[in-house]
């Protein structure tokens, strides 16, 4: 894929509890923002195919969404369009599939769009909908998924991180503090306020050892990217961003098939595949948007992607390495923690951030670029066995 695919436009809406916006409203706004973002302009008819990321269709009561939903909502019925649902990595995987559509040589210009309406239900129920502990085979059989939603699964990892790696609740809280600081500088973030370690630790316990402020919110949102053949990119923009690597990494469906609870093998596999494709090493990356659905998850992500050895992420975080102006800024957008986690929009929102940073258009939250390489990562699904990593660069 390296050298074949370029991002020419990204667009999103401010994430949040968008009670006044329907799924269609959000999709249309993100799409229009994305068209506008193409520097030299684009005729929507040039887009021949689309990949539509949608996770909750049917779960939260919007009815099942398919490729037709996107084609109809953006008034482009000549599109070839598929829906992607791959749990929490849905957004990142939708982007990957769009890139594959271009890299295959079948299409020149395609759209990747992800949208999620989480808050048509109270957040507890919405969270319940998001909490599939059972795998594809066992589904929601009560014998195997009692109370094993996302927070419980990640909290069980956190318990183990504390036990094996000596991590503390303060270590987890520092992730939230950093990401809330970044989010306070991001106009698209769900939460744009700062917090302190004390505030995290004094917030209600959701799932011990995780507090309310260790958990990402339930967020509505939509985000999109237009990708095209790398050799055509300059026709649309002087600042194209190129896709170097894109890989999904997988692991077991059932939590008890997992060998470790301080690492997520799906992320290790996704990162390995993406780095191999890109022909680079973790140290070559300037900054990353990682999947911090829970604060402890970000520490695991940092280690699993290869930015720190197992057990070292917390110290590096404490030393400021992952701050906005640190050695390796992590989640300059505010991450899922502050920026929000509208499942299928999350990954594309991260792509929006990576592209914006690489174009040096991130304003107050702009990170320093050295190699001009950014990384995006998601993880989720039953037993957190699904992950995706995309690596983007300023140079082809």
């Amino acid at each position, binding site marked *: 894929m390296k050298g074949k695919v370029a991002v020419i436009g990204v667009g999103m809406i401010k994430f949040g509890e968008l009670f006044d916006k329907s799924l269609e409203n959000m999709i249309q706004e993100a799409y229009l923002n994305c068209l506008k973002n193409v520097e030299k302009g684009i005729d929507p008819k040039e887009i021949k195919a689309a990949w539509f990321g949608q996770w909750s269709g049917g779960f939260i009561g919007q009815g099942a969404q398919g490729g037709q939903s996107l084609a109809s909502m953006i008034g482009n019925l000549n599109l070839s369009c598929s829906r992607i649902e791959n749990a929490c990595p849905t957004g990142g995987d939708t982007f990957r599939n769009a890139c594959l559509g271009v890299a295959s040589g079948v299409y020149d210009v395609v759209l990747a769009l992800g949208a999620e309406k989480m808050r048509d239900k109270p957040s507890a129920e919405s969270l319940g909908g998001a909490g599939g502990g059972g795998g594809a085979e066992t589904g929601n059989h009560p014998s195997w998924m009692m109370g094993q939603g996302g927070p419980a699964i990640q909290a069980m990892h956190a318990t183990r991180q504390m036990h094996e790696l000596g991590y503390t609740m303060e270590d987890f809280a520092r992730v939230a503090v950093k990401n809330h600081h970044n989010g306070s500088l991001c106009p698209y973030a769900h939460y744009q306020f700062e917090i302190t370690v004390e505030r995290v630790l004094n917030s209600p316990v959701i799932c011990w050892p995780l507090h309310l402020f260790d958990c990402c919110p339930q967020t509505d949102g939509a985000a999109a990217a237009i990708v095209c053949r790398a050799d055509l990119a300059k026709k649309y923009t002087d600042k194209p961003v190129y896709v170097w690597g894109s890989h999904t990494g997988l692991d077991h469906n059932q*939590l008890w098939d997992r060998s470790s609870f301080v690492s997520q093998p799906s992320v290790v596999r996704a990162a390995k595949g993406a780095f191999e494709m890109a022909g680079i090493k973790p140290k070559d990356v300037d900054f990353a948007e990682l999947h911090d659905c829970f604060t402890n998850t970000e520490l695991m992500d940092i280690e699993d992607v290869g930015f720190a050895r197992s057990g070292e992420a917390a110290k590096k975080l404490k030393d400021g390495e992952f701050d906005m102006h640190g050695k390796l800024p992590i989640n300059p957008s505010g991450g899922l923690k502050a920026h929000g986690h509208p499942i299928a929009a999350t990954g594309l929102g991260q792509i929006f951030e990576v592209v914006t940073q690489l174009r040096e258009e991130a304003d107050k939250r702009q990170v320093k670029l050295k190699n001009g390489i950014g990384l995006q990562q998601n993880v989720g699904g039953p037993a957190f066995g699904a992950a995706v990593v995309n690596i983007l660069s300023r140079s082809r």
Partner: protein
Amino acid sequence: MTQPVPASPMYWRFNTEVHRLVGIKCQDCGHISYPRTKICHECGSQNLKEYKLPQRGTIHTFCVNWAPPPQFEPPILPVIVDLEGGGRYGGIMTECGSPDEIKIGTKVEMVFRRMLTDRGLNVYGYKFRLAEEG
């Protein structure tokens, strides 16, 4: 989301697994999968033998869920248990008076309990309780 109901084929299909804890042990890599499967989840081997999960073990990890799904009274205690003799099982604790009673390494045993009731029809399965000494 519409769930299958207790009288549905999905529940019926898992009767043996749910009531008798039948899984498989891979004869090539030793991985234990539960419920039963025809291809080892770890290595893809088809050289498998049925393996009944042991009903005692120690807590590998756990959490204290104060925000469980609406049908539960908080807190609930999800656990992943390393079973004596091999295999893991994920479940929740029952009869636990206080979250302080469990930690990593606590000995537990499976007990057959009611999991949910749908239109008066009960679904049963295994939970964990603190194991007796000895």
